[in-house]
C-alpha cells in the first residue's frame, strides 16, 4: 500500500511537472509580446526593456522556466493583463463558487444516474430500458450551453421558478448544477445499468431470490451494494469534465466562478488568466484521478493496488 502510494504520488508529481512545461511552452506561442501587453502601447523602448529585465524575460529559456516553476510553487500565477491583479488572487476568490457548482452537479448526476440505471437494468430490453438509454445518449449529445439556455428559457423565463442568473441562494444553484450534471447523469445511468446487469447474474442473487426475497429487495439490498462500487469510484474522474463544463455553464448563468473568469479572459485575450485557470484545472484533475485510484480499494476491497 505504501509503495503503491509513493509510486502513484511520484507519477502525479511527474505529470504536474509536464503540465508546467506545457503551459510554459504555450506562452511562447503567443504572437503578442507579453512585455508590450503590460507596458502599454505608448511605452518607450527603454521602458519596455526595463520591464523585460524586471520580469526576467531576457534570461535564457531554462532559467525562465525555473523562475516560472519557482513562482508556481509559491502560488504566483502571474498578473492579469487587463485586470491588473494577481491571477492567483482572482482564482482564489472565485474557486469556492465553482466548487459549490461542482458539488451540486455531482448531486444531480447521482440523483439522475443511479435510479435510471437501476430501473433500466431490472427492465432490460423493455421500453423503460430503451428510454433510459436514449436519455443517456441525448445527455451526452447535447451541448451544455444549449441545455443551459433551454432550461433558462423554460424554468426561469416562462415558468419563473428560478432566477435568470446570479449567485447566492439555493435557487440560483439548481439550474446551473442541473445543466452540468445531466450529461454525467446519462453517463452514470449507463455505467450503473451495466454494473447492475453484471451483478444480477451472480449466484448469490439467485440464492437471494430462491429464499423468497421480493424483486426490489434483491436488487436494492443485495444487488446495489455491489453494483454501485465501480460507479462511485468514477466520481473523482468527473473533475476534468466539470472543469471544462464550468466555463460554459458559468458563462451562461453568470455564475461567479473560475469558469466565468476564464470566459471573460477569452473575450479580452487575457492569456495569464486562461493559463492560470488551465493550470489549476489540470492540478484538480490530477488530484481527482489520484483520489479515484486511492479510494477505489477502500470502497471495493476486491480491488488490489499494484
Amino acid at each position: 500500500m505504501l509503495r503503491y502510494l509513493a509510486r502513484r504520488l511520484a507519477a502525479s508529481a511527474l505529470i504536474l511537472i509536464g503540465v508546467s512545461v506545457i503551459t510554459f511552452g504555450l506562452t511562447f506561442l503567443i504572437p503578442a509580446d507579453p512585455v508590450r501587453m503590460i507596458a502599454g502601447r505608448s511605452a518607450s523602448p527603454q521602458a519596455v526593456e526595463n520591464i523585460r529585465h524586471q520580469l526576467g524575460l531576457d534570461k535564457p529559456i531554462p532559467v525562465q522556466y525555473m523562475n516560472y516553476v519557482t513562482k508556481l510553487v509559491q502560488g504566483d500565477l502571474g498578473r492579469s493583463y487587463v485586470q491588473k491583479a494577481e491571477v492567483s488572487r482572482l482564482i482564489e476568490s472565485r474557486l469556492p463558487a465553482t466548487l459549490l457548482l461542482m458539488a451540486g452537479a455531482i448531486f444531480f448526476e447521482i440523483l439522475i444516474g443511479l435510479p435510471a440505471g437501476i430501473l433500466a437494468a431490472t427492465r432490460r430490453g423493455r421500453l423503460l430500458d430503451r428510454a433510459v438509454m436514449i436519455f443517456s445518449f441525448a445527455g451526452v449529445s447535447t451541448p451544455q450551453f444549449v441545455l443551459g439556455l433551454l432550461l433558462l428559457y423554460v424554468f426561469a423565463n416562462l415558468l419563473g421558478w428560478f432566477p435568470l442568473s446570479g449567485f447566492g441562494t439555493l435557487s440560483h444553484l439548481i439550474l446551473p448544477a442541473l445543466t452540468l450534471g445531466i450529461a454525467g447523469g446519462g453517463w452514470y445511468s449507463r455505467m450503473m445499468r451495466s454494473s447492475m446487469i453484471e451483478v444480477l447474474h451472480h449466484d448469490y442473487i439467485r440464492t437471494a431470490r430462491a429464499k423468497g426475497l421480493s424483486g426490489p429487495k434483491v436488487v436494492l439490498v443485495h444487488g446495489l451494494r455491489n453494483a454501485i462500487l465501480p460507479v462511485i469510484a468514477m466520481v473523482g474522474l468527473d473533475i476534468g469534465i466539470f472543469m471544462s463544463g464550468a466555463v460554459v455553464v458559468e458563462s451562461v448563468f453568470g455564475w461567479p466562478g473560475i469558469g466565468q473568469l476564464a470566459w471573460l479572459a477569452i473575450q479580452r485575450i487575457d492569456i495569464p488568466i486562461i493559463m492560470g485557470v488551465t493550470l489549476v484545472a489540470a492540478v484538480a484533475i490530477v488530484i481527482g484521478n489520484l483520489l479515484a485510484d486511492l479510494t477505489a480499494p477502500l470502497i471495493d476491497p476486491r480491488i488490489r493496488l499494484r
Partner: protein
Amino acid sequence: MAYTWRRLSKDPLALVGMATIAAISIAALSAPWIAPFDPREQFFDGLTLEGAPLPPDEMFFLGTDLLGRDLFSRLLYGARTSLVIGVVANGAAVAVGTLLGIVAGYVQGWVGAAIMRFTDLMMAFPALLLAIALAAIFTPSLWIVAMVIALVNWVQIARVIYTETTALAAREYIEAARALGAAWPRILFLHILPHLIPTILVWATLGIATTVLLEATLSFLGIGVQPPTPSWGGIIFESQSYFLSAPWLVFFPGIAIMVMALAFNLVGDALRDALDPTQRGR
C-alpha cells in the same frame, strides 16, 4: 463486414442515426441549391420595424437572425462547417492517435513509455480549456479550429489503440511473423493494423460527435469558426443576449447540433455492439 451490416440494419436506433447522418450530409452538400436564400444576405424586410429579428413565418421558414438573414439558409451552410470540422479534425485525431497508439503498443521500451506518459500528461488537461488556450493564442479560422480539436482529441484513441496493440503483439502469429524475419513496419501495418480497424471505425464515428460538440462550444465561446462563415455554435453566440426575445435563434441551431451529435453517437455505439458481439446489451 456483411455480418456487421446485417446486425446494424436490425438496430432501429442505428438506422435512425444513419438516416439522419445521410440527410444532414445531403443537405450540407446541396446547400447552394436547396437554401431558399443567400446565407449572407441581410434582408430589409427580414427585421421588424423596430429592428428585431423575425420569428418563423411563411417567407423565412425558421425566422431571421439579428441582421435580418434567413436562419434556415444559415443553418444549412452551418452544417457544412460542422461536417468539415467533424471529418477533418476527427480524421486527423484518429490518424495521430492510431499511429502513436500502435507504435507505443508494439515498440514498447522507452519509446512506448515516452508516448504513453505523454498521453497521460495530455489527459490531465481539461480538453475544452486546452482548446481555449490554443484557440486564444492562434487567431481562429476553420483550419485552426480543426487543428486545435485534433490536438486535444487524439489522446483517447491513442490509449485505446495502445491497449489493443499490446494484446495483439503478444499473440503467437505476430511472433511467427517476426520469426519469419518480417520487418516491424510490415508487422505493424499488415498484421496488426487490420485487426484494429473495427476499433478505429467505432472511435472515428463516436469522435465525430465529440468533435461537433467541441466545435460548437468553441464557437459559442467566440473562439471557434469566425463570421461570416456560418456555424451552429456561432449563431447561438451571436444571438445569445437576445435569446429571451428571440428564442428560435438559440433553439434551432441547438437542436441541429444535438441531432448531429446524437446521430453519430447512436451509430458509433451500434457499430461497437455489431463489431463486438460479446459486448452486446452491456
